[in-house]
């Protein structure tokens, strides 16, 4: 049986400083630090990230290239753990938030929305630290329109015994075609030699940046399936599939269906219910061809020689998922959440087939295109008009007074109150609960934290590391009372040990 699909999402935000006379502040690395520190000093005590056990160079195909890669983590930069169990840090000159581990796609959506609000609050907090008139702007997007891209990554828990090669073969058709449902849309194209006249609008922010089918890189020659083998939990039992091929979504429906559909399909692969008959002849070409054709009519070639549209492949995947629900159930993704995912996924495919405009309230690339098209017609703007690119950027702008995504009528799936709660409180049903609660209760005694351990300073004794190798242990059910009833970390550790 498929194991629980614990999941999470991590987003690098675009960052821009305006109105600063100081060159140091306009450096994006410094600006990211200012942004995060402004939030932390206004909201919670800073607890640093613990870099023990981070091995981004370990490859799922069975070798390690730690020495060959430039360091992915710059340990001197701001890197904090939040009381909601998330990590807030500077990565590659961008502010990044990784949500805590979540048991369902719906919870991961809630924490992704909370992350967005944390960045909004950070922008507000930073204003008071900057000179008059200066501000830091953040965008939840994936490209600057000039060939520079930054990621929105998903993570899914998989059983270690599942052969990695099978994951690659069986999930790739989804990773290439799911953009028609969850693409965030982009004005223009960033491939060398391709102009806005050739591709005035495309489905995905990220498709132009994928050059390999499978590999370890995340910043150059990006692969559709990333092989980083760093489970952040018991490596003998689990894998963490690190997915780098997605767009950052403004639509809650899109984030939810992106995480939910992928979780279901991965559960099916674990249960050997997928098959590899949808394998594509050339996934890298296909991901671009699909992105560059918002008419959804272009067909791509399968490895078996047949041709199909992205929509036809998505229908196939949905039908297999619906069948899997009947034969195996969806407990691994939470049956109720899984059912909701299937309903929304089917509704979007039906809408795209009938008239894409009908899903403008759910699908980012359709919602953005509607605005771009309408504006272009009204003002007689040509494809390379800077105002159209400005609309694209502003769709993702996190300043409430400038954001277009909040104005276009997108459906919401989580309440404002639930999002606010998730800004400070961890999920109840994963180990993030233990991390977040300990941090909130004993900020002075937790000296460092990371995904799979917490380090306490209990005074006279050496530092004590509490390993958390099981993503579903340390939940409210198992530790809430222990934490509530302990006055000090030493007391908690004594109780945990007994």
């Amino acid at each position, binding site marked *: 049986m498929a194991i629980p699909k614990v999941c999470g999402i991590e987003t*690098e935000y*675009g*960052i*821009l400083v*305006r109105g600063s006379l100081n060159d140091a502040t306009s450096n*994006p690395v410094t600006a990211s630090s200012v942004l995060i520190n402004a939030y932390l000093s206004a909201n919670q005590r800073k607890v640093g990230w613990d870099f023990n056990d981070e091995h981004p160079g370990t490859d799922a195909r069975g070798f390690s290239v730690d020495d060959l890669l430039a360091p992915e983590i710059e340990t001197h930069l701001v890197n904090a753990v939040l009381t909601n169990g998330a990590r807030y840090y500077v*990565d*590659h*000159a*961008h502010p990044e938030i990784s949500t805590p581990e979540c048991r369902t796609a719906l919870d991961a959506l809630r924490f992704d929305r909370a992350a967005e609000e944390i960045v909004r609050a950070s922008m507000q907090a930073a204003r008071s630290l900057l000179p008059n008139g200066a501000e830091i702007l953040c965008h939840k997007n994936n*490209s*600057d*329109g*000039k060939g*520079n*891209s*930054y*990621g929105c*990554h998903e993570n899914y828990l998989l059983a270690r015994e599942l052969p990695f090669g099978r994951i690659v073969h069986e999930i790739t058709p989804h990773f290439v075609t799911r953009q028609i449902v969850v693409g965030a849309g982009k004005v223009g194209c960033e491939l060398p030699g391709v102009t806005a006249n050739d591709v005035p609008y495309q489905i995905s922010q990220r498709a132009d940046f994928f050059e390999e089918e499978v590999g370890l890189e*995340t*910043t150059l020659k990006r692969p559709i399936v990333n092989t980083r083998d760093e489970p952040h939990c018991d490596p003998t039992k689990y894998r963490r599939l690190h997915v*780098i091929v997605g767009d950052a979504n403004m639509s809650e429906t899109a984030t939810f269906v992106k995480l939910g559909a992928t979780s279901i399909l991965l559960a099916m692969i674990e249960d050997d219910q997928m098959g590899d008959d949808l394998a594509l002849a050339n996934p890298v070409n296909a991901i671009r061809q699909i992105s560059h054709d918002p008419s959804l009519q272009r*067909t791509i070639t*399968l490895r078996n020689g*047949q*041709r*199909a*549209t992205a929509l*036809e492949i998505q*229908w*196939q995947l949905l*039908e297999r998922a*619906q069948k899997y629900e009947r034969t195996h159930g969806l407990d691994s993704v939470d049956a109720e959440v899984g059912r909701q995912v299937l309903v929304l996924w*089917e*509704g979007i495919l*039906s809408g795209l087939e*009938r008239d894409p*405009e*009908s899903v403008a309230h759910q699908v980012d690339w359709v919602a953005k295109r*509607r*605005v771009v098209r*309408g*504006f272009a017609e*009204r003002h007689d703007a040509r494809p390379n008009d*800077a*105002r159209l*690119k*400005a*609309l694209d*950027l*502003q769709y993702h702008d996190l300043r409430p*007074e*400038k954001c*277009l995504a909040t*104005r*276009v*009528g997108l459906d919401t799936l989580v309440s404002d109150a639930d999002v606010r709660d998730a800004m400070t409180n961890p999920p109840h049903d994963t180990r993030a609960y233990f991390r977040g609660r300990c941090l909130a209760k004993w900020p002075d005694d937790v000296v460092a934290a990371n995904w799979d351990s917490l380090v306490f300073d209990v005074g006279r004794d050496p530092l004590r590391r509490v390993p958390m190798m099981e993503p579903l242990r340390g939940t409210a059910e198992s530790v809430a009372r222990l934490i509530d009833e302990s006055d000090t970390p030493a007391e908690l550790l004594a109780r945990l040990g007994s």
Partner: protein
Amino acid sequence: MAERTQKQKPAPSRTEDAVEAAPPVTESGDKLKAELDDLLDEIDDVLETNAEDFVKSYVQKGGQ
């Protein structure tokens, strides 16, 4: 591939949805157009005043 997909689609429920969701074309078309016009009015106000400079200054370092 295309034919097989056509056959396997769970047609009944979706066809019903499609029928319900398609009220008289002119009425819904007019309403949608009015909504879009309102939205575009708002966007004219919200759009960066110097869009060209804004787009030019929007340069990011590559990330993951």
